[in-house]
């Protein structure tokens, strides 16, 4: 009889365990002790990891004067005050920042997913001259750190008159080579029968792409869409320099630069930090699985 420690099989490989003897008592005990220790240690760390966010949240729900007194005062304050959030919502800046972040993230996501999936399809399915050269360039592209290019990118956007527009944030982030590769790898793994059948039926490549390949790509599209959205939302360095006007700033830039007006309003500052992250936290709660898949996928393939 195989050991039963209340575990269930979690990976996809079917259970074809050879009939095993009972492991020795000592090992069973040590396994249990290990598991208990593991649970305790891990939980302690997990709680530790939650503390900074919780502290920020708590501070945001106190008054500015309490927050100014420091951590002991904040921790012992039992009241919940929404004053900071009201101040931020009324001030109006944060709405502009949400708008800017939302537009730039959404438009970039749509363009990136569309272009990367199309490009991935080309690299995966189509034989065309120069394919290998393109491939090589793409590999180089992964190695190029976009942040290093912020200075020349600024100059180019300046020359094109695109500074201080949403496009200055959108365009440079559209060519996400990781997305290209993930799509290509995914398409490589898709069986070709459906496409071949469609081809024989006379469908053009665009039709095949749209009606055969893409519908099968749900998980990857979702994962890449979310990874791109989060990435663009959280990007600081690019919008920091190409968007100077507070009304056009994205959330991270707004939080990072327009702090002078808060002065020593610590509760307000923490509230702004919470608000800045809120849409993404909500996104995470809804799309947890997809996000994790996306992350794991990019890592393993990257």
């Amino acid at each position, binding site marked *: 009889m195989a050991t039963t420690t209340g575990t269930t099989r979690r990976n996809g490989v079917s259970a074809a365990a050879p009939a095993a003897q009972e492991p020795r008592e000592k090992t069973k005990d040590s396994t249990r002790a290990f598991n208990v220790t593991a649970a305790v240690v891990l939980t302690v760390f997990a709680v530790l990891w939650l503390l900074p966010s919780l502290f920020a949240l708590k501070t945001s729900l106190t008054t500015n004067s309490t927050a100014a007194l420091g*951590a002991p005062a904040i921790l012992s304050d039992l009241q919940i005050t929404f004053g900071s959030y009201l101040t931020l919502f009324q001030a109006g800046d944060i709405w502009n920042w949400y708008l800017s972040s939302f537009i730039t993230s959404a438009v970039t996501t749509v363009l990136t997913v569309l272009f990367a999936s199309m*490009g991935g399809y080309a690299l995966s399915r189509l034989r065309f001259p120069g394919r290998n050269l393109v491939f090589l360039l793409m590999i180089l592209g992964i190695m190029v750190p976009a942040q290093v290019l912020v200075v020349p990118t600024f100059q180019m956007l300046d020359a094109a008159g695109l500074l201080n527009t949403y496009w200055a944030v959108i365009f440079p982030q559209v*060519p996400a080579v990781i997305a290209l590769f993930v799509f290509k790898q995914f398409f490589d793994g898709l069986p070709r029968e459906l496409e071949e*059948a469609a081809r024989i039926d006379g469908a053009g*490549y665009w039709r095949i792409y749209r009606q055969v390949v893409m519908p099968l790509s749900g998980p990857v599209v979702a994962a890449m869409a979310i990874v791109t959205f989060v990435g663009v939302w959280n990007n600081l*360095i690019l919008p920091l320099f190409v968007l100077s006007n507070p009304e056009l700033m994205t959330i991270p830039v707004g939080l990072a630069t327009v702090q002078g007006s808060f002065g020593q309003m*610590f509760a307000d500052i923490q509230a702004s930090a919470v608000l*800045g992250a809120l849409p993404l936290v909500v996104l995470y709660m809804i799309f947890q699985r997809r996000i994790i898949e996306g992350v794991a996928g990019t*890592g393993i393939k990257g």
Partner: protein
Amino acid sequence: MTTLTTPPPVPPSAATRPDGSPDTGTRVKTRDARAGWLFLAPFAFFYALFLIVPTLYMLITSFFNTSLVRPGLGSFAGFANYAEMFGRADFWSAMWHTLQFTLYTTPPLVVLAFVFAVLANRLKRGQWFYRLAFFLPFVLPSATIGLIWVFIFTPGTGLWPTVQGWLGMEPTAVLADPSWAMVGIAIATVWWTIGFNFVLYLAGLQDIPRELYEAAAVDGASPWQQIRSITLPLLSRTTTLVVLLQIIASLKIFDQVYLMTQGGPGISTQVALTQIAAIGFTDNRIGAASAFSVLLFIVIIAIALIRQLFERNQDRSA
């Protein structure tokens, strides 16, 4: 719906087009070529415009005294900008601080993530809780991280010195002390990004068949021994990936330093990218900033190439 069976392979030359005419190989190839380029075109356009052109522009301006506020390329400087960088103490200190940051963050981010993942993998219940705890910070914007941790590190009254006081330690003004500021940034970074590695390791762990562990348990191996002899070797590829991804990400650090210390106190936390931004946008010297960028670029490419070679080696020996 029945399973698809693979139709017998049809050689391209024998294919027929809907109108009945034979589909010769070259026609298919032309169609392929055109379709291939058309499909790739949008991505390639943006890629060329926003990755290749800026890279070239960066290379070119590094040889000139380009100013942020003056039009044109400015006067020709030859290698003067590069020479200036090599002669600048704050260039070397910026590179050193970047390396320092990498050294401070990579081991914890790899080891801790591994430990957490191994432990979490063992526990059946509550996985969602651990995933939430470790991964949630990863979705937060760096600006939020900066604000949270600067507040925690407030000298005297912040959460950090308060807890230090409870533990009987001497409170440290972490971000104000040149010897501790980088540690503070490292702590915030580890907190922020460990979730990514945690998830990678978890995914890798879940690919290891349970039977291996059970067989080892039957043979009397303790959990430690199981980890050592099964988990570690099978995760070596993931570990290499994690380490190298971490190193490259650390070289590109900008956000946390800009938000938490602005490179201070003094220049004790000034890293490569913040120094580049300072030279380019505060000193208004695009040419010099480009030279610095090129040098950083070279370092990153070198490490990425090493990674490719490493992986190819590992693949060969696997």
